[in-house]
């Protein structure tokens, strides 16, 4: 059964140095606050996985938490590039960043294989692209029935899967809706999981089209209202578009980024002591 924990306790317990960690979310429901807690906890040498690494991954990379990034599209959605990500790849700042690069279809299927307990997934993908030359988790497999050659991608099984959801009940059953991306697969593919939620309620209301993850499939739930900010939680909050634009300017400059890290991540912790 999922335990309901404080965010800092959950991150301290579930995320270790050197772990493979996926904080998933597809523009909607991004577990930003959980990411900040990982920076605050000073985790290092993480292999970070994400289909769409965006601002929170830029922050984790800039803070030196990551050794490797497994991804399919890295950008500041609606704005442009991720400058900390670029700086790490192009200039190894603050530490070198290894990459493992896929397409969305490939990454999604890697999580599906991981969630299904299979070693790999099959898809019609990567044809004619240069990606397989550089990514050794992309290969081919011959169909035993038709002989057709298809793309194969290795399963992705993170040590920790972290997502943000709208609600959980007190027993730790999790409910989320709207654009749900690959979050269900991420939790099911991961050895341990943490779900931050907008609120913990006595009973989950009926919600058409919602994904429900039963308590026994989740390791920990933490109540973190606004935990997806600046992304949004449908039914709870709107996307803070200005934040994404402001991040572009902050992240372009190493000194401004350091200043952000100090005032937004480290100072609140010091003053909370």
């Amino acid at each position: 059964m999922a335990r309901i924990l404080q965010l800092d306790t959950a991150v301290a317990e579930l995320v270790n140095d050197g772990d493979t960690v996926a904080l998933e979310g597809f523009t909607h429901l991004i577990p930003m606050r959980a990411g900040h807690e990982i920076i605050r906890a000073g985790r290092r040498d993480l292999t970070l996985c994400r289909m769409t690494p965006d601002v929170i991954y830029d922050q984790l990379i800039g803070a030196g938490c990551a050794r490797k990034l497994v991804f399919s599209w890295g950008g500041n959605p609606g704005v442009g590039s991720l400058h900390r990500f670029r700086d790490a790849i192009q200039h190894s700042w603050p530490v070198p960043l290894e990459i493992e690069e896929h397409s969305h279809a490939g990454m999604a299927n890697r999580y599906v294989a991981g969630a299904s307990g299979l070693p790999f997934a099959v898809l019609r993908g990567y044809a004619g692209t240069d990606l397989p030359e550089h990514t050794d988790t992309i290969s081919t497999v011959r169909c035993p029935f038709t002989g057709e050659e298809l793309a194969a991608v290795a399963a992705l099984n993170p040590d920790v899967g972290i997502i943000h959801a709208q609600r959980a009940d007190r027993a730790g059953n999790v409910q989320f809706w709207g654009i749900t991306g690959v979050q269900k697969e991420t939790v099911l593919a991961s050895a341990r999981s943490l779900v931050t939620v907008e609120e913990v309620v006595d009973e989950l209301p009926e919600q058409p089209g919602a994904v429900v993850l039963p308590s026994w499939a989740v390791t920990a739930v933490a109540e973190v209202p606004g935990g997806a900010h600046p992304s949004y939680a449908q039914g709870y909050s709107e996307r803070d578009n200005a934040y994404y634009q402001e991040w572009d300017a902050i992240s372009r400059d190493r000194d401004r980024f350091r200043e952000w890290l100090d005032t937004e991540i480290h100072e609140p912790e010091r003053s909370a002591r």
Partner: protein
Amino acid sequence: MTGELSETPTTSEFTSDEMMTVAASRSLNDESVCFVGIGLPSTAANLARRTHAPELVLIYESGTLGTKPQRLPLSIGDGVLAETADSVVGVPEIFNYWLQPGRVDVGFLGGAQVDRYGNINTTVIGDDYQDPEVRLPGAGGAPEIATSCGEVLIVMRHSPRAFVPDVDFITSVGYGRDGSARARLGLPGRGPVKVITDLGVLQPEQGTNELTLTGLAPGVEVEQVRAATGWPLRVAEELGVQQPPTDRELRILRELKATVGNGESS
């Protein structure tokens, strides 16, 4: 290229970007199913749905099927796409069930670089993948959109840096390094049928699949397009000139663009 528009061209000023977006929207047929990339393709597809193609079905890779946003989405995961969709499905499903089997007529893509055979690069600029001159965002959904859709439309601003003889990295295949990759790979879709730019339209030449100039934007000279293209651009025998936007197209496009803060850079 001009579509079936009954209205007459505008007499007011318009920008080359507006012409490009209008030309791209006219390339989408009503009642077809379109897999839309964010940025310029999204603007053009939403314009088409408000003008000549009200029954155009829009699919975004965030899992929104048949979405009818009232305003331009800022990103592929904008809440307005989910709220106005016929159905919202998970990301594995959008790629596996909807894109992969060939249910989508048109894939609509942008890119950082395109080459003479319509291959798109959104990965790295420079020869060394491990040590690139510029690191770009990466593939996203494009590699499979480029192979699985019935056909592909590309919309990009024209410059020698963007229109190169050979892309540094093939992220999404057009016709491959020699123009004949699609047949060799047995790809289901036809590939890029048009590249719409702020200067005109390029289309693959029958047989060679080399992108050739087939249409000019109003007021643009062939030499301008050649100067903005990184390979010796060939010109089709019958070179068309695009109809300028109508007043209605311009009004709707400007209203649409006023609904979003900044939606064209990713």
